[in-house]
């Protein structure tokens, strides 16, 4: 790992100031994506700005018809949060399925979403519920936020402060876990909130998380696993690697979507 300077601001405003003064700086949340990448010398930030001393960045609360999760909320805390479990057990299961217990003890929702790893779990839930990402500058709709592998709408100097998830009556996540890495080989999040139906897929697409409009249309007629019977998506644009071919990933999207809808309607 290349060396860097280390900063521990106590307010979001201070963190933003540090970012502005250090153009090559990076924010540090749980460090469980950034530090491994720095060890491989694939990233060389001049400074790390640790967000862990900022008060109130890790709150989890119900606000009206939304569950609002602070950027520094750790995966383990969201997974067992009574607020999240009461509102949407399907959402709690997403951080609950991440990596292993020690990773869940450190990793955060803000870091996961900002990183936008194409195999990460949270992006599926954020897109699959139509959440809003609240930064120190603005509110960004999930549909505009994820912009391809490791790419988001975040601009220089922008800090995720919290993520607001509208409460959906029906919501569930199904993940085909890569047995070694724990990441999603494919993961599908489905939700139904009134007439708003979403199917979001992580792990499969070579351009990161995406929605499956054909599945959403079919589920609009009836939100049941049966509505997706025999449906699949084309293999073009799917990831292919030693773990799974594009065709297999496309196949899994159909299978996991049906399982997720079955879970959401059980």
């Amino acid at each position: 790992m290349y060396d860097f300077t280390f900063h521990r601001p106590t307010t979001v405003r201070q963190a933003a100031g540090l970012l502005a003064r250090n153009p090559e700086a990076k924010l540090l949340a749980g460090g469980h994506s950034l530090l491994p990448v720095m060890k491989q010398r694939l990233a060389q930030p001049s400074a790390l700005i640790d967000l862990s001393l900022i008060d109130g960045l890790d709150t989890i609360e119900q606000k009206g018809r939304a569950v609002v999760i602070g950027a520094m909320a750790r995966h383990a805390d969201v997974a067992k949060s009574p607020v999240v479990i009461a509102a949407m057990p399907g959402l709690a299961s997403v951080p609950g399925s991440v990596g292993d217990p020690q990773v869940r003890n450190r990793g955060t929702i803000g870091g996961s979403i900002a990183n936008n790893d194409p195999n990460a779990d949270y992006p599926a839930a954020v897109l699959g519920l139509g959440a809003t990402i609240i930064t120190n500058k603005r509110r960004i709709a999930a549909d505009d936020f994820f912009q391809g592998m490791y790419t988001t709408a975040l601009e220089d100097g922008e800090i995720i402060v919290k993520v607001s998830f509208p409460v959906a009556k029906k919501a569930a996540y199904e993940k085909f876990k890569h047995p070694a890495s724990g990441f999603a080989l494919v993961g599908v999040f489905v939700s139904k909130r009134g007439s708003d139906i979403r199917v979001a897929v992580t792990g499969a697409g070579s351009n990161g998380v995406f929605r499956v409009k054909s599945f959403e249309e079919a589920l609009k007629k009836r939100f049941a696993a049966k509505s997706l019977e025999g449906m699949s998506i084309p293999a073009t644009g799917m990831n292919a690697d030693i773990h799974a071919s594009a065709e297999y990933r496309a196949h899994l999207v159909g299978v996991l979507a049906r399982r997720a809808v079955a879970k959401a309607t059980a």
Partner: protein
Amino acid sequence: MPAVSMTVNGKPVSGEVEARTLLVQFLRENLRLTGTHVGCDTSQCGACVVHINGIAAKSCTTLALQCEGATITTIEGLAAADGTLHPMQEAFRDNHGLQCGYCTPGMIMSALDIVRRNGNELDEHTIREQLDGNICRCTGYHNIVKAIAAGAKTMAR
């Protein structure tokens, strides 16, 4: 170089480190607490697990400076001052829960975190699932699982 101070196994410690110094390096090289191991250095094996403010974490994926002011417990901090082993350590010994012993410190620190999160009555499935982040190269999982179940029970007494 930046200074760092924290409480390790009940004692206040401090030192000068590079910003990039990992917690595990600080523990092993500065403090000479070599019970915490590095198996992979890629966040996967769990040999380096310690408790940061009571919560299990991989010390190879944590900077020493992130632990400024924190309370750290390592495997060296478990036994009593007179050398009496912690019940979880004793259970690993009684159940032959180690072979070469390389993974053992991480296994035991993780086992205590499993007890913290899941209580003292642990079934085999829970233990195996919760050991997802710990790899035993000697693959002695059967006895590790038995040891954790037994250790957890004794801890309740």
